[in-house]
C-alpha cells in the first residue's frame, strides 16, 4: 500500500525522466559521424585568418615584453609618487638657519604689513601653499612689527609665538596636545 502511494506521486523529478528517455535513432549517429569527420578535416585544412598569420611570429616577443612593461610601469609609478611626496618629516626647525631668516632686503617686495597683537597661546599661521616658495604672514605683538615675506623653506606649517618681544618659529611636528613642549628657535630677531 505504501509503495502504491509512493509510485502514484508525480513530481518534477519524475517528469524529467521523460527527457532522459529521449534518444535519437541509430541512423542519426551515422550521419553525425560522417559530418563530424568532414568538419574535423575542414578545421585541419582551414587556414588561419590573416591577423593570426601576422600575429603568430610576433607573439613570443609580445609575451616576453609583457613582464618588462609591467615592471617598467611599476618603477615609473614609484618614482613619480616619490617625487610628489612632500618630505615634511625630514625638515625640522633646527635645519633652518638660526639668526635672521630674512632681511628686509630679501623681502622681494611682497611685504604685507599688519598691525595686530599676537595672542597667547601662540596663534598658528598658515602657509599659503605647499610649494617650496612660501609667503609667510607674521603678526607681531608690537606696533609696526608685522612682516610678510616670501622665502624658500621646507613645506611646513609654522607656529609663531611671542616670547620676550620675539617671534619664534616652532616645529609643528614636535607639538603635542598638551601644548608647546618643543624647542623654539628665534629666527626673526630683527624685530
Amino acid at each position: 500500500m505504501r509503495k502504491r502511494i509512493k509510485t502514484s506521486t508525480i513530481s518534477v523529478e519524475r517528469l524529467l525522466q521523460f527527457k532522459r528517455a529521449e534518444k535519437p535513432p541509430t541512423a542519426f549517429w551515422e550521419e553525425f559521424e560522417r559530418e563530424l569527420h568532414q568538419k574535423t578535416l575542414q578545421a585541419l585544412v582551414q587556414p588561419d585568418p590573416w591577423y593570426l598569420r601576422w600575429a603568430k611570429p610576433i607573439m613570443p616577443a609580445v609575451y616576453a615584453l609583457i613582464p618588462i612593461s609591467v615592471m617598467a610601469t611599476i618603477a615609473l609609478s614609484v618614482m613619480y609618487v616619490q617625487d610628489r611626496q612632500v618630505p615634511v618629516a625630514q625638515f625640522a626647525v633646527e635645519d633652518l638657519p638660526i639668526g635672521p631668516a630674512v632681511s628686509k632686503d630679501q623681502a622681494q617686495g611682497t611685504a604685507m604689513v599688519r598691525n595686530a597683537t599676537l595672542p597667547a597661546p601662540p596663534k598658528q599661521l598658515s602657509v599659503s601653499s605647499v610649494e617650496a616658495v612660501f609667503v609667510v604672514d607674521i603678526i607681531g605683538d608690537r606696533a609696526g612689527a608685522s612682516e610678510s615675506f616670501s622665502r624658500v623653506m621646507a613645506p611646513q606649517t609654522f607656529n609663531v609665538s611671542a616670547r620676550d618681544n620675539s617671534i619664534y618659529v616652532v616645529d609643528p611636528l614636535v607639538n603635542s596636545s598638551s601644548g608647546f613642549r618643543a624647542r623654539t628657535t628665534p629666527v626673526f630677531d630683527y624685530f
Partner: protein
Amino acid sequence: MHWANLLTVQISQTVDEAVARPANVGAHQGDSDRVVVERVQQGDVSAFDHLVLKYRERLFSTIYNLTSNREDAADLTQETFIKAFSSINRFKGRSSFFTWLYRIGVNSTLSHLKKNRYRRFFSFEHINDEMSATEIVEALAVKTNSDRSALISELQEKLNEALQKLSPKHRTVVVLFEIEGLSHQEISQIANCSVGTVRSRLHYAKQQLQAYLQDYLNQ
C-alpha cells in the same frame, strides 16, 4: 520459476534501469580516459575516436536538453569535439576529461543560446518504448484521461517549454543534475561556480518547473 515470470522480472528491471537516475560516471572513468588522452596528446589521432564514441550520446543529450533543438544540438556537439581535439594539448588533467569536455560543450551552448535568444525552434527526439510502460505514464494517463502516445507527445512539448522558460544557467543545472545525473561537485566544475550556487540554482529552478508543470503534478 516459470519462464513467463522470468521474462516479467527481466522486463521490469529494464524499465527501472531506463528511468533510474543515471550513475555518476564522471568520477569512475577518469583513469581510463587519461590514458586515451595521453595517447591523443602523443599524436595518436585515432584514439580520439574512442572518446567521441564514449561521450557523444551523453554530450548530445545534454546539449539537446539545453537547446531543445536536434540540429543545433548535433552541430554544437560536433563543434565541442572539434574544439576539444584542437586544444587537447592544453588539457593538463587537473579535472577529468569528461568534466573538461562538458565544460567546453556547456560554454559553447550557452554562447549559442545568447547569440540566438530570439530564435526558438523546438524539435523532439524519439522516446524509448520502455518509457511508455512506466508507472508514471500510467498514472498520468489515468489522471488526464488520455491516450498514452498523445500524452507522451504533449508531455514532451510541455517539458521543453518549461525548460526553455528557465534562464540558461538554471536550465544547465537542472539538465546536468536531474537528467544527466551529475553530482553537485561535477556541475560546479563544469559551470565554474560554487557547490552552494549549484544547489541554490537547482532549488530555484525546481520551484519554477513546479509552477510551469502544475497541471501534471500531484504532490
